[in-house]
């Protein structure tokens, strides 16, 4: 039997095959036009994490899929498609980050936000696990010392709480303050899992304690700074203000930079 050219060409044309339905979705997610999302277990309960090829785009305590998808579309203009689980590498990276590892890289998709908001979030990323800073500290550190309120608003709009640790930013008077991810109680829970005692922090702040100095180094810190925590009780010197500390011959810590908070406050 001899095949004509036509037979061969027909046989070849017949090899055209429909693309799998996952292909187009994969492309749109990779370029950041559509997001995927999945449930993620955090210390404060199950959360929704959304991501695309550019990075993590949302962390939210959404009651159900429909609500999340509607919220996400309204906020980002992008559709979110449920996935069974986070990509393994991303889940591991988030676990490590929540465990205090700041070296692990987690890309974030923060398109559609202002430079100011991004500056605030980037600065919040510098606060280590187990420490907190006042809103005014962020404002001063990003060169906008008068924008304390705007810093609070920007933190409230943080689309990726926990990953950007806005829970580590507290009110300048030392009280815990608001939290976008389900309210202040969640903020306390998270700070407690990071080794802090929110009740004790607030009690100390109420008693007027704002700074802690060491009478051996004559360095003064914010109370949760890792250097302040290392000072043994006999050498701890509480201060109500940086002026008082300066008067006593104490210089501000270079790590927690307490002056940043003081300028704004």
């Amino acid at each position, binding site marked *: *039997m*001899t*095949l004509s*050219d036509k037979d*061969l*060409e027909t*046989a*070849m*044309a*017949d*090899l*055209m*095959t*429909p*693309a*799998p339905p*996952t*292909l*187009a979705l*994969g*492309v*749109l997610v*990779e*370029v950041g*036009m559509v997001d995927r999302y999945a449930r993620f277990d955090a210390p404060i309960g199950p959360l929704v994490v959304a991501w695309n*090829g550019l990075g993590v785009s949302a962390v939210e305590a959404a009651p159900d899929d429909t609500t999340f998808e509607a919220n996400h579309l309204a906020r980002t203009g992008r559709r979110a498609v449920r996935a069974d689980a986070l990509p393994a590498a991303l889940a591991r990276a988030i676990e490590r980050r929540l465990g205090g590892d700041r070296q692990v890289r987690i890309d974030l998709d923060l398109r559609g936000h202002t430079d100011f908001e991004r500056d605030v979030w980037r600065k919040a990323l510098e606060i280590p696990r187990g420490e907190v800073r006042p809103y005014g500290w962020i404002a001063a550190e990003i060169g906008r010392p008068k924008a304390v309120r705007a810093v609070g608003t920007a933190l409230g709009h943080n689309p990726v709480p926990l990953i950007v640790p806005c829970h580590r930013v507290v009110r300048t008077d030392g009280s815990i303050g608001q939290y976008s991810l389900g309210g202040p109680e969640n903020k306390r829970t998270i700070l407690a899992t990071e080794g802090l005692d929110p009740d004790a922090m607030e009690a100390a702040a109420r008693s007027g304690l704002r700074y802690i100095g060491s009478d051996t180094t004559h360095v003064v810190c914010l109370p949760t700074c890792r250097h302040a925590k290392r000072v043994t009780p006999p050498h701890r010197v509480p201060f109500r203000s940086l002026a008082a500390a300066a008067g006593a011959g104490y210089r501000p810590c270079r790590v927690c930079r307490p002056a940043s908070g003081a300028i704004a406050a």
Partner: protein
Amino acid sequence: MDTDGTLLTALADDLDGSFETLVLAHQDRLFSIALRVLGDRHEAEEAAQDAFVRAYRALGSYEPGRILELRLRPWLATIVLNLCRSRLARRAARAAVARPALSLDATELGTLEPRADEAAEPAVAAARRDTRETWAALLLTLPPAYRTAVVLRHVDGLSYPEVATALDRPEGTVKAQVHRGLALLRTAFEAAQRREREEMTA
């Protein structure tokens, strides 16, 4: 092509607003090209996906004038074929590394880039199942240059000038490669059929 002209205008005007249309319009052909060159569905899906992502990034970096001048079908084919080539090269490199451990087994290598005359035998088994699968298997036995030319011209249906653009080869070369490829396919197919008849009468 007229629909591609409309699409190019839309892409130049609003990439994010029209990129999904491009994906939906071209996904079957990019997937088919990759599938028929690589012979593996999973790898083909990855290659096609990467190709669209690269196309998106390229389009995002082009001036509108440059987008309007694109010949979309061959341009996308070039992107996916480049990705297929690097996948084939990686496969060959992996096989070369694995070779010493495989004693003197040459069949492993034969399945990677088999020559047409060597590969007739495995195709016979496939022929019993499905003619379409047979053709797909035979196509994979062609030398890569012939295979890509035949896939673009007769699976994807590009014109000879488009195939020449996609492969960046002279049109005459491309025509010769397509004809030579089809001739090899015909010989291999007829050999497979003959063998099948012999086995049935034996």
